[in-house]
């Protein structure tokens, strides 16, 4: 009797541990990737003053797809993606898309140098001193890019240099629908 109970208990414990192992390997999130809690949620509203002195808010772009990029002049991957975003802006802004770049933890002088060096011409603004916008978007590092749909919902986020393909796929989809 006792042997049967121990065997049953042991089997349940081993099966439980195996179940946890399988869950961890196949279903739990990848420990190397940082999940975003904001996907499919409404994009946090913000109002900023751009480097050229205009006040813009996310709310005013409702009805248009928005590419919201967080960058900094000291970030190497931001250099890699600078011309990619600028090219996408040149192509899709006339079709109704909006490109916004928020500089974080950067000095105004360095940001302006970076803008001039890479010929960035879309809406560019610094985050405030506390970094309220970046914290509201759960930024973990720069660059990070959020794809916000016409309803103001965050549909996708990239960590690291954004690719032309990902922006093209998202914007083509949004602008055609």
């Amino acid at each position, binding site marked *: 009797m006792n042997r049967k109970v*121990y065997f049953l208990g042991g089997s349940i*414990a081993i099966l439980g541990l195996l179940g946890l192992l399988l869950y961890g390997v196949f279903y739990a999130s990848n420990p190397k990737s*940082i*999940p*975003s*809690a*904001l996907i499919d949620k409404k994009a946090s509203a913000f109002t900023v003053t751009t480097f050229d002195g205009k006040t813009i808010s996310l709310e005013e772009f409702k009805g248009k797809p928005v590419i919201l990029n967080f960058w900094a002049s000291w970030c190497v991957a931001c250099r890699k993606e600078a011309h990619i975003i600028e090219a996408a802006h040149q192509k899709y802004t006339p079709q109704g898309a909006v490109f916004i770049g928020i500089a*974080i*933890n950067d000095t105004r002088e360095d940001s302006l140098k970076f803008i001039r060096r890479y010929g960035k011409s879309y809406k560019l603004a610094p985050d405030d*001193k*506390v*970094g*309220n916008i*970046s*914290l*509201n*978007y*759960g*930024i*973990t*590092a720069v660059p990070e890019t959020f794809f916000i749909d016409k309803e103001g919902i965050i549909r996708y986020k990239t960590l690291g240099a954004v690719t032309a393909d990902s922006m093209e796929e998202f914007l083509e989809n949004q602008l055609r629908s």
Partner: protein
Amino acid sequence: MKKLIFLGLLLFLSTAFSGLQADELDDQVRQIAHKLRCPTCQGLSVKESEAGLADNMKAKIRSLLEEGKTEEEILQFFVDRYGEWILRSPQMKGFNLLLWLAPGTLIFLTCLILFFKMRQKSITTLKPEAINPLNEEELAQIEKELQNLNRN
């Protein structure tokens, strides 16, 4: 003169009080920052990290405390934006409960099984047939020692 002394004392007390309040706020910021994972650095808390983003998080914690938010509300603020991984200790709810309770339960169950196993063994070893009865020589020795004790 008296007025001057009074004003000086007032100034001293208000400075000391504001200093104490600032210290308390700093402690609260550190305490909350210690519970948050630094998103840009591996294995460090926001408190330990000197990365720009961690500094922003500390400043945000301070401003939320100044707004009158509780520690729980501030931690939730970061969980809402970063997800639960931002917490250095998983919350005690849902699937996480298993993580919190499993090790203790396993240790408790193991101890319980070991306890019953050992008890069962000691009972078995004390069974009458397992005890060797004393031989005549031993009995005589005991009797002799008892008599010696009675004489004394």
